[in-house]
């Protein structure tokens, strides 16, 4: 008998929580350019790869996800309070992760700054691989989609 009461209550509570706009994911669709440059130890440029794939940001709680643009795919931790500051600072590793030493350049480090007011999104990755230095840069202009998006947008982001 208990489950006949409990389950509807859980369902109603879940729906009501879902109505709380601030708890829903928020989306931005961005267009811009990315570049991946590879240097040797003497900082001679060896390789360059560029792209203008669309980028989509999904903010969910204090994490940001991006899975559309190949150059910057992944989950990012938001390390600044967006309610106080229009600039969101985010990075690949947890904000308080002491296990990543600053001099461990073999591990990829990504840092990004997203201005909620202007929609400007800047991101950089730095790491070394077999004595090569790899730097990823991207500058994007983003427009807010609110709490919804359409998969059709993905195909028009380059226009």
């Amino acid at each position, binding site marked *: 008998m208990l489950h006949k009461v409990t389950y509807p209550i859980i369902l109603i509570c879940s729906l009501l929580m879902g109505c709380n706009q601030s708890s*829903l*994911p928020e989306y931005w669709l961005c267009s811009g350019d*990315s570049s*991946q440059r*590879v240097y040797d130890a003497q900082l001679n440029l060896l390789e360059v*790869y*560029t*792209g*203008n*794939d669309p980028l989509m940001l*999904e903010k*969910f*709680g204090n*994490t940001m*996800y991006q*899975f559309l643009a*190949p*150059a*910057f*795919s*992944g*989950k990012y931790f938001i390390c600044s309070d967006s309610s106080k500051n229009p600039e969101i600072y985010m990075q*690949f*590793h947890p904000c308080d992760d002491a296990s990543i030493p600053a001099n461990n350049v073999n*591990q*990829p480090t990504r840092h990004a700054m997203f201005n909620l007011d202007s929609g400007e999104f800047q991101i950089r*990755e730095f*790491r070394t*691989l077999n004595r090569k230095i*790899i730097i*990823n840069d991207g500058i994007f202009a983003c427009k807010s989609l609110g*709490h*919804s*998006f*359409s*998969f*059709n947008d*993905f195909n028009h982001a380059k226009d």
Partner: protein
Amino acid sequence: MLKIKENHLIFLALAIIIEIPVILAIVWMTGDYREPRFNIWPVTEWLVNYQGGFVRRGLIGEFLLTISDPISGILPNLYRFVLSSYIFYITIFFAVYALAKIKNNRVLILALLIQGGIYHMGISADFYTRKENLFLIFFGFLCLLYINASKKVGESKKKRLLWLVSLPIIFGPILILIHEAYLFMSFPLTAMLLFIVCKENPSYIYLRFGFVLYVGICLIFFISCSIHHGDVVLAQAIWDSLPWVDRVKLSPSAPYSQFAAISSIGWSLGQHLSTIYGVFITGGVYIWIFFILGNVLTLAVIASLIYPISAESRPKRIYGLLVIGLIVSSAMFLIAADWGRWIAFMSNQLLLLMFALSVSTFSKGEEKSKLILNLIQYTQKIAPKYLFYIVLVYGLVFQMPECCVQYPNIFVFQSLFQ
């Protein structure tokens, strides 16, 4: 004379339904084309390996990396592998159908044309390119073994039943290491099949022991995979271990950066769940509801053709088993957004189970559940006369997307004309 012509026509239709997708799949997977043969996401899911340490989904990628040449890359081997798995699944499907002695052309045509089934797999290069096709092959093999064992007696039957319960204990964990979603997709119906075997053979205690062992070992391996779900550092190590030629092909704008399903190794449960939100917010849920209803209707018509309901006798237990099977294998809808994949997999697996249970004594018992009996009665009332033709047209005209980005293309060959 008319009967011979009708048989010829059905034979011709069946030949076309089989040949077109197989030819398309062979041409597409073995041809020399510049672009990847299927979506980057499923491609990269196959490439997850153990080069960064033990991680979920890594087994098959490790195998492919081991057998591949670094110069030519993994992708050519992957294409051959998925093509072989498609051909192998078709073979298993027909073997189960033949051994179960269904002998009903209408059943066969609908089973081949069901959305996400053999016909649509081949013409879209979707579904069979996913890891769950291996689950289907294994489940089909178990169905074959079950049908074969059901026809034997004495020691011969005992030996086959021993195999039937042993193989899931061995291969269940392997399939979980290939993709942990096995626990939600294929495990429920496999456990159900073993449960039926236990019910039908109560004197064989080892079957019950094997059943419990299968459930336990699958749970242990799933928990182990959940603990080793990966992170960004490991995802980058996996990406770096791939042959250069593959990385450039998959991500030409940033070949040094982890991407797609390899990058998603670092996702949290929250991100997986937020994709469900995407199903609703993008309106995709309406497309999925259409295909869920279409496939359930197709499965219901096939079930009614294999297990006709007569006015004189009570409906058989098979209907209850199929409804339970449908419910227990639907957990993936709550976990991830690729609803087309889940619909296709559930439909194909239920078809195999439906064929296999035609030899089951347990499923021939009378249905006692009032809920199921009411459902059957209600369905009989509303069932239109030409239901077979309705689901036939549904199978021929539409093309279920595999996932979300293909929402606009819901008609067969539609993408070719855009």
